[in-house]
Every structure is written in structure tokens, then in C-alpha cells.
């Protein structure tokens, strides 16, 4: 549909203060820059399951899978009118070679890319060290920057890029204040002939935390919120049902990560009992107002990757994700857990006490409540557990080092491919690096499976690998999947329309992701 041009979109950003820094490479104000001033090469639209080509027209792996060729659109220009061509792309790709901090896609650092070659004015070939079939997932995280600006910049991290020259729909900085930045239409946008973008400007407003977003939404001060809002139906929607709406599509999977090195979590029976002891739908309902989706299986992928799952496997393990306290109790009893000292709580088979803590950073209010309710359910089957609110840094080190009893945390299930989640769960190279591999069950065998996935492109073998990992997860339960979180998305159609909705789900509206943000923005128009 064609819409008239004009209008401004106001969006909130959680920040301390705004500053004049539009450098996509240092990420100081990434949310202002990515997808707005700078376009990605292409975007994976997970909801539609397709690729939206942006600056690139196409990409293609070589037959030997040892290189990828990226073809840019013709007649691309920078916002200052200069031509955007393969030189810029090659320059941008090469930035990561010298300085790992500029390696936004991370493909130099992990040794994938060997070198970058310009083929012609619009094409660039990226050569690999080894066979690889997954580079295209990561390249959208890399921003193409104008060589004519950045090549003369000495320290590309400290550079503030005060007069940004970009490729995206809005590039012209109209005003920078500590609490508002306004950026407007790119006069040389490559889609200008299609009348895009419809909106003239975006105003970014600074808010210091979530609690200030709700009143701003209610009083129509902002058009697009991406924040947790408590009891949204009773607050935001109720304050003006005609124009206030929200859509919370599923996001990443949240798990209770168990430390399988310690009793009682070292016992698979205990882990299974744990999983069956909690009533996922009720937890989601009470603690999170029903916004997330309760997980119905335990294979570790979540709603976002439903397409990658196997129905049979899901069915086989569904009972582990179903609330069944009787079964839990039975299982525990069989495994030798008894209340020896008569305090009303079960002890380990060896007689030692069970009393563990589920760790969660203070301040994550909705998930804190989930954990609290989880402990109540555990209490019902005679297991003593408590919620432990910790400081973020303590959480970080416990999660990485695997020194926790239990932590509640997200997973890497919101990435393009399902295999990424398993890499984070099980690849030995990730242990100690990230939060999801501290459960103690990562192994070389599982790591090899994950690695194999990345060098093949046979869909059948790929599915086999996924199935194997899913079964391993469900059989061993190193973590207990609880729910797929929601994508926080509130819209206000008082001034601007065209937002994705449940009825018209053209993209998963993640504001903090440059790609999806761009797709939504392109669809917005003033009323």
C-alpha cells in the first residue's frame, strides 16, 4: 500500500543521557543508529521464515563452501550523495580483521573469515579458512560504513560520528538534546522512489527505567514501546482501547539451569521430578500476566523454533513438561528421597539435607516472581528451595562458572537458527564464556555435533543432528525449560499506524534489533 509521507515516530530508549554519538561501530547509542541510519545487508524475518534483502541483492556460497559472494544493489548511495559500492562493503568487512572490537559479526575472531575480496563494483567475496555454511546468519550484524568517512578516522571506537553519513531511511540529525534526539529522512535513500519511508522523523526519548515508560505510553507521549508493562490490559490498553494496543509474540526460551555436578541435581530422577512439579501455565499467568507462553516440551528450543522441532519427540517427552505432582512424588520416593528428620522436607538418599537456592538478579521483577512461585511448587512436593536475589555481577560469575545451584535464565533460542541454542548449551568452547553452559553437561561429543551442523548444508542431516540434541536434552534435563518469554511490544495508533499485530504479523517487532526495527519502520505511516 502506498501512504502519504510525513509524520514523526516517538520511541523511548532506556538510557542515562543522550549524547552526540552516532557511530555504529562503538554501539554507544546502537538503538538510535542500527536499522535507522545504517541498513543491514539482509534481514532474517523469522516470523515469515524468509530473508528480506536490504543493501545486498543476494548472497551465494561457493560450491566448495569455502567462500560467500555478496552482491550489493545497484545505484546505492550514501546520505551525502556519494556512491555506496563494494569498496565500502569490503572496507567495512575488513575492519574486524585489524581490531576485534570492530568485528561486529564476530567471524574474524572465531577464525571463519580468511580474507575479503572485491570482485566488482557491487560484489564482494568473503573467503573462509574452512568449510562454512552459517556465515550468512551473522553478517547482518555487521554495518556497512562509508569508507570515505571512516577510513580517515584513527580510533574508530572513540569516534563519535557527529555528522553521520548513512545508508538507512533516516540519517539527518535534526537535534541532539540530553533527553531527546531527532533524526529525519535520508535525502538520498535508495527506496525514495517507492515513497519510503513514509514517516519523516524519529524522536528518541530518554527514559531512565521501565517504570517511566508506562505513564508515557498511557499519556500518548510515545508511539512504540518495547518494555515490560505490568498488567497491560488494565493499564495501558484500558486508558484508551481504541488506539492503545500490544502484541507479545513469543521470544526466547527461559530455563531453570541445574548444576548437575551437585546433589540432588546430579540425579536425573530428581531433575525429572523438578520438571513435573511445576505448573508452567499457572506460573506464566500469575507472575507474568500470561504474556509469555508456557513451554509444553522439554527439548530446549522454545516457541521461536517450533518449526525445527519434531512432533514425535515432543510428544514422547511432553509429560515431563506437564504439571504432575503425584508423579513427581512417586519418582522421588522411588529414587530414595525421604523425609528423614521429620521437618516436612525431603532429604537426599544419603540423608543429607536438600536446601537450595534459585538465583536471579534483583530487579528482574517479573521473573523474580516466577522463581518465587516455582519455589512454592517445589515446597508442595517436599523440596526446600528459596529465591535468592543477587547482584548482577554475582549472577554473571555464578552463571559462567557454574557455581550456582539453580539459575533461571534465557537461552540463545532467539537467534536465526535453532542450532545456535545448542551451541550455547553444549559446546565445550562456550563453557565459562556464557551463562547457558554452566550446568555441567557440555561435552566434546555434543560439541562435535554442533560443529558438524555448521559445515554442511544437507537439510536432512541437519535435522538429524537437531533431533539428536533434542532427545539428549529431554533425556538428561540439564536445564528445565519453563516458558517462552514475550517480545515486549506496545503500539499507539494515535498518530502513527502500520504496526505489526497479531492479525498482521509481518515481522516480530523487536525494537532492539536493527533489522526488524527497520521492517516495522518501513511499514509505519502517519495517520
Amino acid at each position, binding site marked *: 500500500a502506498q501512504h502519504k509521507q510525513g509524520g514523526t515516530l516517538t520511541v523511548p530508549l532506556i538510557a*542515562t*543521557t543522550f549524547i552526540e554519538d552516532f557511530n555504529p561501530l562503538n554501539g554507544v547509542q546502537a538503538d538510535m543508529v542500527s536499522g535507522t541510519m545504517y541498513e543491514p545487508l539482509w534481514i532474517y524475518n523469522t516470523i515469515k521464515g524468509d530473508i528480506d534483502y536490504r543493501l545486498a541483492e543476494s548472497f551465494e556460497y561457493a560450491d566448495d563452501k569455502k567462500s560467500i559472494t555478496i552482491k550489493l544493489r545497484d545505484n546505492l548511495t550514501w546520505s551525502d550523495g556519494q556512491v555506496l559500492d563494494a569498496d565500502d562493503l569490503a572496507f567495512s568487512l575488513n575492519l574486524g580483521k585489524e*581490531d576485534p*572490537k570492530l568485528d561486529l559479526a564476530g567471524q574474524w575472531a572465531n577464525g571463519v573469515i580468511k580474507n575479503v575480496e572485491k570482485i566488482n563494483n557491487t560484489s564482494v567475496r568473503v573467503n573462509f579458512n574452512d568449510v562454512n555454511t552459517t556465515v550468512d546468519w551473522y553478517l547482518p550484524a555487521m554495518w556497512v560504513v562509508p569508507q570515505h568517512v571512516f577510513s580517515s578516522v584513527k580510533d574508530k*571506537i572513540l569516534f563519535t560520528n557527529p555528522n553521520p553519513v548513512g545508508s538507512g531511511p533516516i540519517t539527518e540529525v535534526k537535534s541532539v538534546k*540530553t*533527553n531527546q534526539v531527532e533524526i529525519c529522512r535520508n535525502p538520498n535513500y535508495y527506496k525514495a522512489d517507492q515513497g519510503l519511508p513514509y514517516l519523516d522523523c524519529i524522536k528518541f526519548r530518554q527514559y531512565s527505567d521501565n517504570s*517511566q515508560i508506562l505513564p508515557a505510553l498511557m*499519556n500518548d507521549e510515545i508511539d512504540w514501546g518495547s518494555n515490560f508493562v505490568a498488567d497491560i490490559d488494565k493499564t495501558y490498553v484500558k486508558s484508551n482501547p481504541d488506539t492503545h494496543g500490544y502484541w507479545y509474540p513469543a521470544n526466547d526460551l527461559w530455563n531453570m539451569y541445574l548444576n548437575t555436578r551437585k546433589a540432588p541435581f546430579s540425579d536425573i530422577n530428581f531433575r525429572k521430578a523438578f520438571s513435573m512439579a511445576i505448573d508452567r501455565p499457572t506460573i506464566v499467568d500469575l507472575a507474568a500476566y500470561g504474556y509469555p507462553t508456557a513451554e509444553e516440551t522439554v527439548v530446549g528450543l522454545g516457541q521461536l523454533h517450533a518449526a525445527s522441532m519434531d512432533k514425535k519427540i515432543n510428544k514422547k517427552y511432553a509429560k515431563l513438561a506437564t504439571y504432575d505432582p503425584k508423579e513427581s512424588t512417586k519418582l522421588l520416593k522411588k529414587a530414595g528421597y525421604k523425609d528423614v528428620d521429620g521437618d516436612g522436607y525431603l532429604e537426599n538418599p544419603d540423608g543429607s539435607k536438600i536446601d537450595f537456592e534459585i538465583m536471579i538478579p534483583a530487579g528482574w521483577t517479573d521473573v523474580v516472581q516466577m522463581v518465587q512461585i516455582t519455589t512454592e511448587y517445589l515446597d508442595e512436593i517436599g523440596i526446600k528451595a528459596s529465591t535468592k536475589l543477587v547482584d548482577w*555481577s554475582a549472577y554473571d560469575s555464578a552463571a559462567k562458572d557454574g557455581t550456582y545451584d539453580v539459575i533461571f535464565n534465557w537461552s540463545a533460542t532467539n537467534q536465526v537458527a535453532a542450532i545456535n541454542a545448542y551451541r550455547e548449551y553444549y559446546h565445550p568452547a562456550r563453557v565459562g564464556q556464557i551463562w547457558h553452559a554452566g550446568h555441567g553437561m557440555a561435552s566434546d561429543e555434543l560439541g562435535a555435533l554442533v560443529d558438524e551442523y555448521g559445515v554442511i548444508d544437507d537439510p536432512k542431516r541437519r535435522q538429524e543432528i537437531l533431533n539428536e540434541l533434542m532427545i539428549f536434552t529431554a533425556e538428561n534435563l540439564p536445564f528445565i525449560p519453563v516458558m517462552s518469554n514475550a517480545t515486549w511490544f506496545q503500539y499507539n495508533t494515535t498518530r502513527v499506524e502500520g504496526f505489526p499485530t497479531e492479525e498482521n504479523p509481518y515481522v516480530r517487532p523487536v525494537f532492539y534489533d536493527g533489522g526488524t526495527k527497520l521492517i516495522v519502520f518501513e511499514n509505519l505511516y502517519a495517520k
Partner: protein
Amino acid sequence: MGFILRRLGFYLVAIFVAITFNFVLPRLMPGDPVDALFIAAGGKMSIEQLSAFKEMLGFVDGPLWVQYLQYLKSVLTLDLGPTIMLFPTEVKLVLNNTLPWTLFLVGLASITSIVAGCMIGLYASYNRGGLFDRFMPVSLQFLASIPQAVTALFIFFIFAVTLKWFPLGFASNPDLDVGWNWPFIKSVGHHAVLPLVTLVGSMLATWVFTMRNAMVNILGEDYITMAKAKGLSDRRIMTHYAARNAILPVVTAISMALGLAVAGQVIVEQVFNYPGIGQLIIKSVSARDYPLMQATFLLIVLCVLIANFIADLLYLILDPRLRK
């Protein structure tokens, strides 16, 4: 002169203690402070930047005193460096954006409450035992004893969210041009009303009581009776003889009150989304942004000390007994 020098010396010591406090704290933290320190910085920093940072915070190799000297040097040369949470933004820039608003709000609130409080206190003491005297100060004190978190949220919810009389946040309307133009000034005023009311409400009672009690004490002094016997008018006695003496305890109380004003500021900025130092300290603390946190803390200390010093000077002007 001696008095001023002594006070200045003392403030130097106080700053020194604050700086040392900053130095010691990260070292008291469990675990490896350097690691924890740079979580927030992610992978954005180069090795060189990281070591420059460490040096700035005194985390250099060598014995503690070497670290301490290094740290002192960077503080004394005002080498505040970049923030971690907004890396590579300079700490100075962030402070620049926030400090003026805090000074504006705290200053205005302090002055308003001191002036208004003293006037109410004066009036109450003048009408000793009257209805006003018996109820006004006590009610104000009652109000002031309600934690600011409660009053601020109530005021915000009622006047900003529900009635929409006042804006939801910011120090001015973000759409206006910053400068000495009337719409902007008006907007600044409009945005300051609710935070100001909250702050003043919580500080007022202190001054009312300080002033009233000082006045009541002084009105019993012989020199007041003498002034009365001299046939001076009541007004002159109150303003010239009594109030001038009663102001002294008020000035003394300033040092105490300033600390509290800063405390109020944190909550008020948080609730009313007012862009000041108070928010900054909370944010930097939760993000473990050491450079920013330390700079903020030092800055607050510095401001409080300067205000204290001004109070000292005021005292010196008002009380001839201190001049030598």
C-alpha cells in the same frame, strides 16, 4: 581568617577521605574487582584501553601504595576518563549534562525551603502558643516524616499521571530549544514544580523547627527584653534583634540538611525522571560503572563541601564572635 583556613584544611581532609573511600571500596569487594569491573564494558575495549582504565582506577601492578598514588594522581589531574556504561563517552560529558539540573533543583529547593521555613518559623514563634504555632510546625513535621518514595509517587500519580497538570518527566519539554527563551524557561519551571514541591515538603519542617526553636530560645534572652524596653517596635525586634541571632542555628543546620537534600534528590529524580546526578548514581551503581560512580560520588561530596563552606562563610559574616 584562621577560621576559614582551618575549615578549608578540614574540607581538604574530607575530600581526601572521600577519594580514599572510592579507592578502597572496589578493593573490598569479594572476588576479583578488575574482572567484575569490566563486565559492563563487554568486549568494546582494547587491551590498551583496559589497562588505561585500570591505571586510572589505581589497579596497577605493584604494592597498594603505588596503586593508591597512581589513583590519587588521576583524580587530582581530573582525569576522569570515559564511562564504562556509555563507553567511550567521557565521564565529564555525562556529568555536564546532569549536574546543572541537580544543582538547579537542590539549590532551588534548599533556598525555597530555608526561606519559607524560616518565615513560617518566625511567624509561629511570633504567635507563640497560637493556633498556627501549635498546629502548623507539627503538621509539617508529620508530612516530612513520610518517606519521600511515598510522597513523590503519590504526587506524581495524582498530578502528572491522573490529572495531567504537570509533565511526566524531564527537566523541560524535549521539543523546545534549549536557551534563554521564554517558552523554554517556562517549561523548565513547569517541569520543576512537582519535584520541587516534594523536596520542599520534606525539608520545610526542619527549618520551621530550627527557626522557631531558635527564636523561642532567643526571645527569652535579656537583650530582647532590653530591646523591648528601649521602645523599639515589635517588628524591628523580631527581624533585627531576634531573627538575626536565630539565623545562626539555621546556618549550622545547613551542613546536616544538605546531605538529606541530596538523599531526597535521588528519589525525586528517579520518580519524576528528572535528569540529574541522583539518577546517575543509581544507574552507575547498578551498571558497576566505576569511573562514573566514583566521579559522581566525588562530585556530590564536592558540592556538599562547597555548600558547607558557603554556610561557614555565612556564619562568619553573621556571627562576629567568630571573627578574630
